[in-house]
């Protein structure tokens, strides 16, 4: 007997829809190390974009720049057509629409690489944290919503009163996911959502990500190294190398990559255009 379950699939973004997010010519350096170097990328509304790239190429850094947790040295980020950030000293069009990062964060949910659950709070307070902060709802109402969200990520209600230290890695990721979608955001950011998980749990998390996106009608950017996950959850894939997007296209390209850099990454080949110098004169 075989157990076949219908897995959700990503909604395809219709042609001609507006951008949810657009990054233009971002530059960011930590000391001498350039992390983002003329980085440009756009995400259509309702689209699921996966950013691939080697470790340390700035994928997670871009997500933090998008949320305003890191300030770029140069470049612009637009959310729903409005530029994000303060106007002071920009010397740009004063009439152009602008939005604050606070406005973006209020409509954005993020699953962090380490889950980033608050150790001192029980699971239900973690899940309902954003709701209680933004909507000032009562604790009993927040508990009810948290339990409902936990059930959506297939965690039993008893989990609500546990502390993060009592959870397994997969449960932590699911609680992190429940927290990210609790306030029903329109933009979801996933930073390595399946890192450190076994293939079965990876599949469960992928399905939960897709079902959450489809239910909310949200756009999503996912950073991952996991090719199988990327193929499952993405409409579109972008490859980041040397601080910029070197290739982007349909997720179907992952099956038979024609681009040399994408092929090297998908097949895990040591030699190719993605090799980087780790020391003077030495390629890894």
């Amino acid at each position, binding site marked *: 007997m075989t157990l076949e379950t219908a897995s959700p699939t990503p909604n395809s973004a219709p042609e001609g829809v507006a951008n949810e997010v657009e990054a233009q010519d971002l530059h960011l350096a930590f000391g001498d190390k350039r992390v983002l170097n003329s980085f440009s990328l756009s995400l259509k509304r309702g689209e699921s974009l996966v950013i691939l790239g080697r470790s340390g190429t700035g994928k997670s850094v871009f997500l*933090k720049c998008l*949320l*305003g*947790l890191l300030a770029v040295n140069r470049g612009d980020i637009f959310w729903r057509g409005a530029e994000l950030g303060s106007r002071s000293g920009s010397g740009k069009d004063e009439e152009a629409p602008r939005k604050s990062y*606070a406005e973006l*964060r*209020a409509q*954005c*949910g*993020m699953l*962090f*690489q*380490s889950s*980033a*659950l*608050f*150790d001192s709070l029980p699971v239900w307070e973690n899940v309902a*944290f*954003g709701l209680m*902060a*933004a909507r*000032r709802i009562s604790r009993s109402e927040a508990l009810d919503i948290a339990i409902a969200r936990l059930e959506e990520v297939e965690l039993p209600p008893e989990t609500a009163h546990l502390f993060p230290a009592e959870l397994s890695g997969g449960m932590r990721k699911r609680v992190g996911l429940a*927290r990210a979608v609790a306030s029903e955001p329109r933009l979801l950011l996933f930073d390595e959502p399946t890192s450190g998980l076994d293939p079965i749990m990876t599949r469960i998390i992928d399905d939960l990500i897709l079902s959450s996106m489809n239910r909310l009608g949200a756009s999503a950017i996912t950073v991952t190294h996991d090719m199988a996950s990327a193929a499952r959850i993405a409409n579109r894939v972008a490859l980041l190398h040397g601080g910029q997007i070197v290739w982007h296209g349909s997720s179907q390209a992952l099956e038979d990559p024609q681009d040399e850099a994408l092929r090297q990454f998908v097949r895990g080949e040591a030699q190719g255009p993605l090799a980087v110098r780790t020391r003077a004169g030495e390629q890894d």
Partner: protein
Amino acid sequence: MAFNSAPKQFGTILLGVAGLGAFVLNLPAAAGRVTLFIGQILQALAPPWYGRNFARQLVEIGFYSLPVVGMTAIFTGMVLALQSYTGFARFSAESAIPNVVVVSITRELGPVLAGLIVAGRVGSAMAAEIGTMRVTEQIDALWALSTNPFRYLVLPRVLAAILVLPLLVLVADIIGVTGGYFIATARLGFHPGTYIQNTWSFLEAQDVISGLVKAAVFGFIIALMGCYHGYKSRGGAAGVGTAATYAVVSASILILISNYLVTELFFAQ
């Protein structure tokens, strides 16, 4: 031999001078960073307020510090009475012991010792907790969940420390003076009623008030250093450990410096 070692010695001296120079140059930069941090705390004074966090910090800083502060105070009072007796007996001034004990405890030893003890216990814990939150992305998660970490984490700690330290010092004053009373009456032959009368008649409101003002200043310093070093920590577990060390060392040094400045403010002629 001496000829060969001369350049080496010169190099060592240059290294020392370079280190001193780097320290001096870093000092204004560090002061600037702390000032900006204080600015962000002041901005966080606007609502929403997190009363639950504030109450938790009151208990954490105040209630859980009581045993260690009480122990420090009672033994300090006892030693002070004993030492004063052996010293004052040389010029027949034993009767001044109640006065010395109460003034020393309320003006100096109560606030300074309580401040240093709380800096060690609470300042390091704050730096470690906030530092761990920093390196595990919990601070980023707070921002992402539309919550200002200065309002949620830092402000409750700073306000609680400012409020609780004077209360702790008040308790330390009472326990310290009681320690002195206990030794003076049980070991040194003082009459209990006379000891209490001498203590009470010599004590001035300014002695206690100056100690409480010092305690509030120390509370601010302890929470500020704990939160600052925790918030700025980097580099995993080692970074958190370093942050905890810096929090205690910097708070202790600033407590001793500010103790002098507040004393000047109250008692300079």
